[in-house]
């Protein structure tokens, strides 16, 4: 337990020591999106009945930031340690694969929540945003950031160079997070794209997270929760298996 705590703490310190870049910067990015989209689409019809477009945007931007930062935290920590070689200090220790995995993912969840709270704290200064179902909010936040943290573990283990990781981020994580209904509702899309979007697990994270705020959503929140949980379990099992086997870690 002590060993896990230490690794978890070290992973927290790692982003805390550069909080400007790991927390403050993503909060600012999310607020810029909010500013640009809210002013561009001022006066557009409300997507969810009775909810102004600006308010509609905020939960999606929060979740998108959580997704991207959870992924960035585990994947960048792993690839940096692999490339600089200091991962051996963890590999030489008696930590188990589960402890290794949970410490990395745990820290990425904490970073994701820091960013989300930052976005929320800044946004509510301008737009009132009551919370209808806090339990759903926390559940989707936890499962979504855990899933992307675990995906980051997989990507960080798989990638052998920074550009491979950047490729994973630019061609998988960022498109999936942008095309998950942050800026629009699923119902606004043509039927074909609705079907395609429904294959994107990140859509359910954002839709369910939004349900936590407004109490309405495109997909049933229970179904979303089940799908997000299943996705989280699937990537976690894969990530744990890779860590356990030492794939690209203990060549």
């Amino acid at each position: 337990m002590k060993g896990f705590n230490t690794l978890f703490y070290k992973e927290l310190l790692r982003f805390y020591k550069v909080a400007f870049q790991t927390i403050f910067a993503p909060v600012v990015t999310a607020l810029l999106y909010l500013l640009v989209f809210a002013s561009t689409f001022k006066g557009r019809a409300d997507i969810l009945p009775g909810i102004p477009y600006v308010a509609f945007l905020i939960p999606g931007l929060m979740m998108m930031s959580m997704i991207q930062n959870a992924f960035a935290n585990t994947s960048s920590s792993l690839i940096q340690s692999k490339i600089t070689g200091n991962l051996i200090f963890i590999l030489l220790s008696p930590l188990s694969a589960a402890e290794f995995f949970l410490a990395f993912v745990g820290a990425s969840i904490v970073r994701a929540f820091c960013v989300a709270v930052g976005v929320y704290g800044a946004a509510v200064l301008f737009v009132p945003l009551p919370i209808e179902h806090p339990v759903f909010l926390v559940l989707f936040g936890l499962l979504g950031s855990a899933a992307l943290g675990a995906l980051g573990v997989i990507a960080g283990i798989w990638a052998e160079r920074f550009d491979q990781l950047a490729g994973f981020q630019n061609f998988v994580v960022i498109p999936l997070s942008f095309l998950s209904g942050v800026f629009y509702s699923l119902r606004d899309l043509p039927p074909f794209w609705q079907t395609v979007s429904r294959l994107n697990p990140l859509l359910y994270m954002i839709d369910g997270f939004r349900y936590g705020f407004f109490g309405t959503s495109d997909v049933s929140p229970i179904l979303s929760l089940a799908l997000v949980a299943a996705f989280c379990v699937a990537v976690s099992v894969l990530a744990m298996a890779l860590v356990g086997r030492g794939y690209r870690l203990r060549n």
Partner: protein
Amino acid sequence: MKAACSAPAIEVVGLHKHFARVHAVRGIDLEVRSGEFFGLLGPNGAGKSTLINILAGLTRPDEGRAAICGHDVIANYREARRALGVVPQEIVFDPFFSVREVLAIQAGYFGLGGRDNKAWREELLHTLMLADKGDANMRALSGGMKRRVLIAQALVHRPQVVILDEPTAGVDVELRASLWLFVRRLHKEGHTIVLTTHYLEEAEALCERIAIMRDGQIAALDTKEALLSRAVSKTLRVTTAEPAASVPPRLESKLRKRAGNILEFSLRAGTDSIPEVLESLRVAGHVVTDIATEQASLEEVFLALTQGRTATGSR
């Protein structure tokens, strides 16, 4: 924690490891007894680090098994890693932390962090002459200092078995001496020490038993004395009263150097005898005023055993 193991410190059976097309370790069987000071020598690319990495769990073997203090490095990895401290060959460090943070974190991975361990970490900093750098960021250290931190990191959990993969590369003379003093102390306290080095004098001075690796195999494994006795030659230095213009024909093939009134002969162990050489010189009319002999060095034995390679690795 006690320093001795109840089982052999290191036990390796039928070990093989391939990297793509390189067969880096080809069938190694090895037992290092608890409390030994063991040398692992061999030219560049012989497979020393690969063997060490397998013992440390950093590399998975393709075949065979390895155990530290009786704990299998894969099946009982927790116990095996608790019993083992490895100083890696490459200098690696975490640029996010200071020296003290790095040591505290490393101890934490092993579940250690109490006052006892803190005192031990401070002692390590002291012994490795890092006390004044304790709060410096790792990035701010010189190469030799970073290596000393690696040594401290390997010892934070007081492992029974300590493997040092070229610990003195890039370390200055003064520190090297104090490092050996420290390693000897650990050895005296009962720790098993395995040392890899390209400085053969170091191995000769410190190790009780030595394995010489070559091409992924163990080419020789014996006590230091037995290895040295395998030496093919020793040196006989003779001082004559007058500078010798020539030597008797039967000694010519053995003459290695002639400078003023000093003659240096290289004698084959077993077949050549010193009295015969002296007698030949006397018969030829040379007056011998002094003689000195020099035992073969480990380096000579090493070269003989690893011959046929261009890189003999005397860095």
